[in-house]
């Protein structure tokens, strides 16, 4: 199964590194979408089917926490798993993100092995899929959630 992926990070370099890490981790990828901030990411989610979102926290315009809050309001968080990849180390903030529905957390820098284990854990917890409707449409999901936080 090939997954459509959305990478949300204000650093062009980090988006390129993550794309490479996804490739090295052997994850089968359909389309890779990129966004520089949460606002852009919400725009992508409105139009495109995305199987998994990798998001930074510290970004201009709309940060990762604000993006997740919007995804909760719009109902996207139930159908589109989010893995936060950040320098963030605050357990308090991570607990808050987890309670909002974020399924996984990885701390930068990320090794391909750890990346794969977290992504596999998150994706195995849902029956999301190739194709289908955008997150803003009538998306189908199992409602089950993998929840993998690695600090």
């Amino acid at each position: 199964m090939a997954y459509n992926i959305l990478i949300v990070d204000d650093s062009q370099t980090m988006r390129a590194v993550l794309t490479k890490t996804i490739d090295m981790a052997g994850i089968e990828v359909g389309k890779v979408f990129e966004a520089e901030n949460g606002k852009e990411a919400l725009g992508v989610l409105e139009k495109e089917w995305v199987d998994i979102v990798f998001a930074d926290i510290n970004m201009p315009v709309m940060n990762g926490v604000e993006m997740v809050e919007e995804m909760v309001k719009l109902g996207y968080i139930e159908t589109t798993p989010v893995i936060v990849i950040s320098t963030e180390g605050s357990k308090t903030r991570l607990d808050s993100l987890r309670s909002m529905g974020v399924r996984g957390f990885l701390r930068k820098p990320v090794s391909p092995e750890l990346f794969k284990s977290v992504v596999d854990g998150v994706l195995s917890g849902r029956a999301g899929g190739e194709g289908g409707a955008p997150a803003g449409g009538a998306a189908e999901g199992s409602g089950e959630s993998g929840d993998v936080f690695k600090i």
Partner: protein
Amino acid sequence: MDKTQMSMVVDSVCKIILEELAFLFCESQDAANFDYTHIKDAHEASMEFSGPQKGKFNIAADQKLCLLLASNMLGIEPDEDMAQAHARDALKEALNVICGRFLTEAYGEEAIFNLSAPQIGDISDLSKVDAGAEMECMQFFETEGYCLVVRLMIYKP
């Protein structure tokens, strides 16, 4: 945390992050012997943080080291155009990761900090004292024959 402890944490975090992020193995350099002329052809990035403590990080690295940083992060050769295009952004991202890791190491997992987006700018006079800083530490490194300087300033609340 006193200045010595802070310096030790900054030193340790920088070495770990640069190794994990870009396979760069840094050696600490003695501040007294550091030649500032070595960082004239450099890029400099800075970012601020606020929360239980307020402060600012600066990092300055030789331009060629920035190329190496970008190329190692991306798994490409330093002479490729892509490495050139990412060199400054790679330095910003390295600082972002160093700052995030430092804050957890220094203030613990319960503390919540807000981080500004890292900014790249012209090289500043890092030896100049910041009068507003309550505490300041500067760490000097050498890796692959290039210089790297990291400065942390902690401000009064």
